């Protein structure tokens, strides 16, 4: 994938935001993930309409102490890994049916 690709939360998952960590289970292979705060920020921003590079700049570089180059490289790896498990979808076109993002637990 390229940095200008769009990423969207897949609906083929189960997910909850618990204590600041996103817990995700892939429906495809039942793999269970917990995302750290950076991963959670990317996943929450994966609305299908914002390119990865924009997410990295606005959500990662703005809030975490990391350069754009470093963050983009890590984010690409992260997105590829989640895409392999069907947790994120990627496309060079906007994706209009991203799954909703779970709100923080009450």
């Amino acid at each position: 994938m390229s940095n200008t690709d769009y990423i969207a939360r897949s609906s083929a998952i189960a997910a909850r935001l618990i204590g600041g960590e996103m817990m995700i289970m892939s429906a495809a292979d039942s793999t269970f993930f917990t995302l750290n705060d950076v991963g959670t920020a990317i996943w929450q921003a994966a609305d299908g309409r914002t390119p990865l590079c924009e997410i990295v700049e606005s959500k990662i570089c703005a809030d975490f102490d990391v350069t754009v180059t470093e963050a983009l490289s890590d984010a690409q790896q992260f997105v590829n890994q989640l895409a392999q498990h069907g947790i994120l979808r990627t496309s060079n076109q906007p994706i209009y049916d991203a799954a909703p993002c779970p709100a923080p637990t009450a």
Partner: protein
Amino acid sequence: MSLLYEMNQKALQLGIPISAHLDITYRCNERCVHCYLDHDDHGEMTTVQIVDLLHQLAEAGVFFLTLSGGEVLMRRDFFSIVQEARRLLFNVKVKTNGVMIREPEARKLRELGVEQIQISVYSHRAQVHDSITKLPGSLKRTIEAIKFLKSQGLKVVIANVLMTTNAGDHRGVMKLAADLGVPYTLDPTITPKIDGDDSILSLRAAGSDINRVFRDPELVGDVEAFCAAPLPPGEDIIDGYPCSAGHTAIYISPYGDVFPCVQFPLPCGNVRKQTFADIWRDSRQLKEVRDIRARDLPVCSSCAHVGTCTRCPGLAYMEGNMRGPSTADCEKSFQRTGIPSANMLIRGSRPALVQIQPVCS
């Protein structure tokens, strides 16, 4: 330590109900002889009420959602409920007898992304299974359903209940499960009816039958390890919680009543009268359940089995005291290890162990 264990620990620390069991109906097309439910409809929650509840459960942090009954497919809105549950990103498990599942229903369950379907099978022999369900042809229909579900790539688990009428058939059901390519579970628990009627307890499998299944390596794996005498409990056990009911797990009936667990009929509130969050946070009954530590159990805290027993506080509650022993679990611990529980010794239902004392000089 697995991620799931960590998730449960985190939920426990934060007071989040990570698992919810929602019975959407008590109506059923079978009349299983061991069933604890009353199958009449006394005013089930409407579709709108259930959808609203699902939103509340998602907000509360529920991740694992079990939809059960009764027979879930007796509700015409079953698939709408599953669809909403999946839209809210629950991990959905469905318990069913499978009788109403044909190819279209199986396909729909796959399309909705249901994680697992648990199907009850009581015997590999139609005459035994059908005499338990009281529905002629039910085993045939259930097996067909499993095949439809498997053909869609869904995860299916066969759940068997050990009782007097099928005690000799667990190996046969295991083979059936293996032939169908699905995992198998066996539960020897028969609970009193929800209205307190305990006549069905006569169906509980005999101790000798429980003993036999506990020594089946195909079922329990390493028999020696499974049946080993319990080690003295550590402080973490004594200070620990008896089970997840009311701590990270909750049960809701088709009428909106909230209980710590499906086997723990202690009324804690009703979601038609209060929000789920208010009940989860403020229920006096849930607080009482949460306050109990193993060290507070008057009989069980001194029992050799305290660290390994599957003591169910709900069954204990149905016997009259949620802090007391559950005799069915005492029996299981005894049959597994050959060591009587403290409760058995007090009640005199088992011979006391001979205590060898040093001879005084």
